């Protein structure tokens, strides 16, 4: 009897203070310079506070000092894994403000490269997510495929990461000879690679145990925090701007809006967010094929004056980027330079949900949840 009393006394004497630790800004699993201030109760996370801004370059201020055309290369460096999509959204925002029409062929090329870049971005997301959870092989397979997409981009615009290929009113130049064949040669074996990836990672027992039922985002909470893109769709909300508010020529293509099904656990868990990206790659392949089949001949760029002055006004234009909704709020005062540009980065909003969903999870799960929302710090910090 006295033994038990002693034990209780000893336990009471043990200190069980909360501990605050820094995760980052140099931590391999934070995908860049993100710092998480984590308060832990043993192995349990009590509170997380993301500290951001280490990559802040004040792009919005830069935009105010540049003509509309010249801001294009800066957009590449927002979400640097999806430069094409960033270019595209900027071009469309200014086109909407100024009422510029885009030639048919340019629209097809834009959709095609936008979707190829979506595949490339998701490949990095999926590969590095595996890396976060301690498996090294998938990332090599993913980067091998991504490399082929980057080769296609390089053949078209000469760059492999920061493309600066889209222009206000079209694209910089037409496709090089034989690129259509090259894209088809990439797509055919790629679909089999997705199946391979599924056997390698999606169905892997350890991977499923690490991700299923972990970090569930309830749909209403996710939307409350402005979470968009695959991370919102994984929670069962079929919101995709390509379908909900079709821009460019997305209303012409047949594709499915991928949503989380809770196949391995609960709808909206970490596995669902991963799985949505894998399945979205197949949908993007479908869209690229339809683009190739319907690609018309003609001009690729509307001629615009060298000193381009959109009329006075303002607009917020949003596009469905690989990470979520990228929005540009552009205010024009009728001069050649924008009076104000605000960038609504999807990674910024997606990251802001972390403090709300990470209370009470294990420290190792925090890494899984962070990896599953797929942030790029270039866009968080802008």
């Amino acid at each position, binding site marked *: 009897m006295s033994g038990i009393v002693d034990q209780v006394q000893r336990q009471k004497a043990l200190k069980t203070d909360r501990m605050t630790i820094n995760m980052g800004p140099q931590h391999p699993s934070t995908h860049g310079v993100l710092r998480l201030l984590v308060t832990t109760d043993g192995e349990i996370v009590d509170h997380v506070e993301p500290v*951001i*801004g280490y990559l*802040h370059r*004040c792009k*919005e*201020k830069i935009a105010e000092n540049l003509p509309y055309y010249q801001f294009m290369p800066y957009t590449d460096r927002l979400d640097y894994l999806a430069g094409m999509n960033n270019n595209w959204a900027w071009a469309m925002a200014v086109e*909407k*403000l100024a009422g510029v029409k885009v030639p048919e062929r340019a629209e097809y090329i834009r959709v095609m490269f936008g979707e190829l870049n979506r595949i490339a971005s998701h490949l990095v997301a999926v590969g590095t997510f595996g890396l976060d959870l301690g498996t090294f092989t998938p990332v090599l397979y993913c980067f091998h495929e991504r490399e082929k997409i980057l080769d296609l981009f390089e053949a078209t615009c000469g760059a492999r990461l920061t493309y600066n290929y889209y222009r206000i009113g079209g694209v910089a130049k037409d496709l090089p000879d034989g690129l259509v064949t090259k894209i088809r040669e990439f797509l055919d074996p790629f679909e089999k690679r997705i199946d391979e990836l599924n056997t390698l990672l999606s169905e892997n027992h350890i991977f499923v145990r690490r991700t299923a039922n972990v970090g569930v985002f309830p*749909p*209403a*909470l996710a*939307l*409350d*925090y*402005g979470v968009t893109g695959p991370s919102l*769709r994984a929670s*069962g*909300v*079929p*919101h*995709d701007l390509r*379908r*909900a*508010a079709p821009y460019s020529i997305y209303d012409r293509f047949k594709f499915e*809006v991928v949503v989380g099904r809770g196949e391995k656990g609960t709808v909206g868990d970490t596995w669902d967010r991963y799985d949505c990206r894998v399945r979205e790659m197949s949908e993007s392949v479908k869209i690229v094929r339809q683009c190739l089949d319907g690609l018309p001949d003609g001009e690729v760029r509307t001629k615009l004056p060298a000193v381009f002055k959109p*009329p*006075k*006004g*303002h*607009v*917020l234009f*949003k596009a469905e980027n690989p990470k979520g*909704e990228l*929005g540009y*709020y552009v*205010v024009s005062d009728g001069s050649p330079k924008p*009076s*104000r540009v*605000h960038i*609504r980065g999807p990674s*910024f*909003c997606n990251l*802001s*949900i972390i403090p*709300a969903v990470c209370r009470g999870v294990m420290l190792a799960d925090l890494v899984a949840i962070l990896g599953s929302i797929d942030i790029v710090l270039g866009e968080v*910090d*802008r």
Partner: protein
Amino acid sequence: MVTPREIHDRLKAQFPDDVGDFVEEPVEFFSEVKPAAVGRVCAFLKEDPELSFNYLVSISSVDLTANLAAVYHLESMDLESGRTRHAFVMRAQAPRDNPVIASVATVWGTAIWQEREVYDLMGITFEGHPDLKRILTDDDWVGHPLRKDYVFPKTYRGIDLE
């Protein structure tokens, strides 16, 4: 589907003193709202069963020289179908020498960070925000870079910036 004009009329009926004009400026039309009323107007917009604006897309700030403004882009999304039911834009202006706007951080979670960003870069104070501090620049940074009269510092922590 409710048009921005109809939403403005409903707001005007509900808050006659707080809601100003409906501004038909290209490309997006918006309502002017008094800065002190932003919190209660937004709470109404979210909680009204027909309007139910459950998604705050973004808070952008604009320097209008005499005033500083925050522009709110709101959307109402159907969680079942993923479709956007209706959208609405509103703007609140506060005088440059005392830029205070009521916070909406208790209405939408995303506003916690977005208001911090506006505070950091444009220097608008959001009254009622639980933790208003700089987010993108350093805590000891001086000034608000997105204001038109901002002067870039010559040194920072002893580092020559020129």
